[in-house]
C-alpha cells in the first residue's frame, strides 16, 4: 500500500469502521513505515476522539431533546388536525351519498328513456321487417332491392280529399301496367269494414319520391298478383279477383300497393 491508497482508508481506520482485514493490516504496516501517514492517522484519531467527546456532550446536554413545549404544541396540532380530518371525512361521506343519489336518479332517467325507446322502436322495426320480408318483385315494373320506406308509405295513407281522377292519371296507371278490372277511390267509411295488409313497395319507388305524397286508388287485381308480393294465396280461389289500394305518386307512377278484404 502506498500513501495514496492509505489516504483513501485513513478515515475508516481512524473511525474504526468495518473494512477488509487484509486492507486494515496493509494500512497498519504502511503507517509503521511512513511517518507522514502515521501522523495523518494520529490526527484523524484525535479528531475522531474530539468529535466523540462533542457528540457525548451534546447527548448529555440535550438528553431530553426538544423542550416539552414543542411536544405540547405538536400534540395540540395533532388534535386539531385530527378533528379537521374527521370533519372532512364526514363531509366526504355526505357528498358520497349525494353523488350516489344523483347517479341513481340518472340511471332511473336513462332506464325510463331506454324502456320507451325499446317499446317504440320494435313496433316500427317489426313493421319494417315484415315489409322487407314481404317485398317481392313487382308485377308492374322491374324489382328494386332498395325498396323500403314503409313508414312514409303508411304516413301517406291518410284520409284524403276525394280526388277527381283525371283521365290523364288513369292513363298513367294503365301505362304502369296495372291490370285493374275496376278502379275506385277509397273513402274512410269503406275502410271501416275492410281489413288491409301493409303497403308493399312497388318496384322503383324510393323513400324520397314517396315523401312527395300521392293518391290512393282502389283497384281489382287477379289473386295471383298477391303471390308476387309474397302474400299467401288460397289456390282454390286462384282465379278470383282481389281488391287492392295502389298508391300513385304525383308523377303518376305506382309506388305501393296493399290488398284489401271486406270484413263481411
Amino acid at each position, binding site marked *: 500500500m*502506498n*500513501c*495514496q491508497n492509505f*489516504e483513501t482508508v485513513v*478515515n475508516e481506520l481512524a*473511525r474504526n469502521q468495518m473494512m477488509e482485514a487484509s486492507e486494515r493490516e496493509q494500512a497498519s504496516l*504502511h503507517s509503521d*513505515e*511512513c511517518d*507522514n*501517514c502515521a*501522523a*495523518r492517522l*494520529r*490526527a*484523524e484519531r*484525535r*479528531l*475522531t476522539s*474530539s*468529535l*466523540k*467527546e*462533542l*457528540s*457525548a*456532550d*451534546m*447527548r*448529555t*446536554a*440535550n*438528553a*431530553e*431533546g*426538544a*423542550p416539552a413545549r*414543542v*411536544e405540547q*404544541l*405538536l*400534540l395540540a*396540532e*395533532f*388534535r386539531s*388536525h*385530527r378533528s379537521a*380530518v*374527521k370533519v372532512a371525512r364526514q363531509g366526504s361521506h355526505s357528498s358520497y351519498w349525494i353523488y350516489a343519489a344523483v347517479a341513481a336518479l340518472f340511471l332511473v332517467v336513462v332506464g325510463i328513456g331506454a324502456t320507451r325507446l325499446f317499446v317504440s322502436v320494435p313496433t316500427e322495426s317489426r313493421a319494417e321487417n315484415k315489409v322487407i320480408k314481404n317485398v317481392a318483385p313487382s308485377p308492374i315494373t322491374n324489382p328494386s332491392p332498395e325498396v323500403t320506406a314503409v313508414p312514409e308509405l303508411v304516413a301517406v295513407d291518410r284520409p284524403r280529399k276525394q280526388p277527381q281522377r283525371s283521365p290523364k292519371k288513369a292513363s298513367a296507371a294503365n301505362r304502369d301496367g296495372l291490370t285493374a278490372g275496376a278502379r275506385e277511390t277509397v273513402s274512410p267509411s269503406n275502410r271501416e269494414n275492410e281489413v288491409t295488409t301493409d303497403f308493399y313497395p312497388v318496384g322503383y319507388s324510393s323513400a324520397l319520391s314517396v315523401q312527395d305524397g300521392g293518391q290512393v286508388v282502389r283497384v281489382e287485381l287477379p289473386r295471383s298478383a298477391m303471390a308476387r308480393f309474397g302474400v299467401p294465396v288460397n289456390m282454390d280461389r286462384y282465379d278470383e279477383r282481389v281488391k287492392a289500394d295502389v298508391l300513385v305518386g304525383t308523377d303518376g307512377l305506382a309506388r305501393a300497393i296493399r290488398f284489401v278484404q271486406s270484413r263481411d
Partner: protein
Amino acid sequence: MKTHHNHSDGELLKAIHSGDEAAFAALYRSRQAGIFRFALQMCGSQVLAEDVTQEVFLVLIRETHAFDPARGSLSGFLYGIARNQLLRRLQRERFYAPLEPEIEDGPSLAEGAGPLEALSRSETIESVRRAVLSLPERYREVVVLCDLEEMSYVETAEVLGCAIGTVRSRLHRGRAMLIEKLRPAVLENAEGEEVKTARCFA
C-alpha cells in the same frame, strides 16, 4: 391512552393516520431527540433547532402518506425533512445570523473532573463545536450525521439523497478541513506535532 412502546414504525404510522394520539406521542418521543440534536449541531441555535424539530413532525401530522417505506426508512425520511428545513432556514437567515454560535447552557462532560482539566476539555469541545459549525453545509451535514450522530454511510446517503461514494468523499474532505481548523487549538497543543497531509508515495 394506549401505549406504543414495541410497535414498528409502520404500525405507528398506521395508528397515527387513523388518529391515534398516543401513537404520535410515542413516535415523537422516540425520534425527536436525534432530530433536535442534528438541527442543533447543524445550526448552533437552540431556537432554530426547536423550530426545525417542530416543522419535521408537523409534516408528519399533515402528510402522513408522504412517507413511502419502499423508498427508505422513517428515520431517513425525518432527517431528510429536517435537513431541507435547515438548509432553507440557513439560506434565509444567512444575512443576519450571528457569526458566533450560541453557547448552550447545560451539564458538561468535564463535570466531576478537576478545574483545569474540566476547563481544557470544555474548551476543546467548544473548539470542535465551532469548527464543525464553520464547515460549509455540504461537509458539515456529513460530519454531523456520520461522526456526531454515528450514522452509517448508507443511512447518511439516504438522508442526503446522494450516493455512498459522495458521502465518503465529503466526509473525507470535511474531516480534513476540521483537522486544518483545529490544528492550532487542539491537535498541535495535544502533542505539539505538525500534521502533514502531503503524500510520500512510499
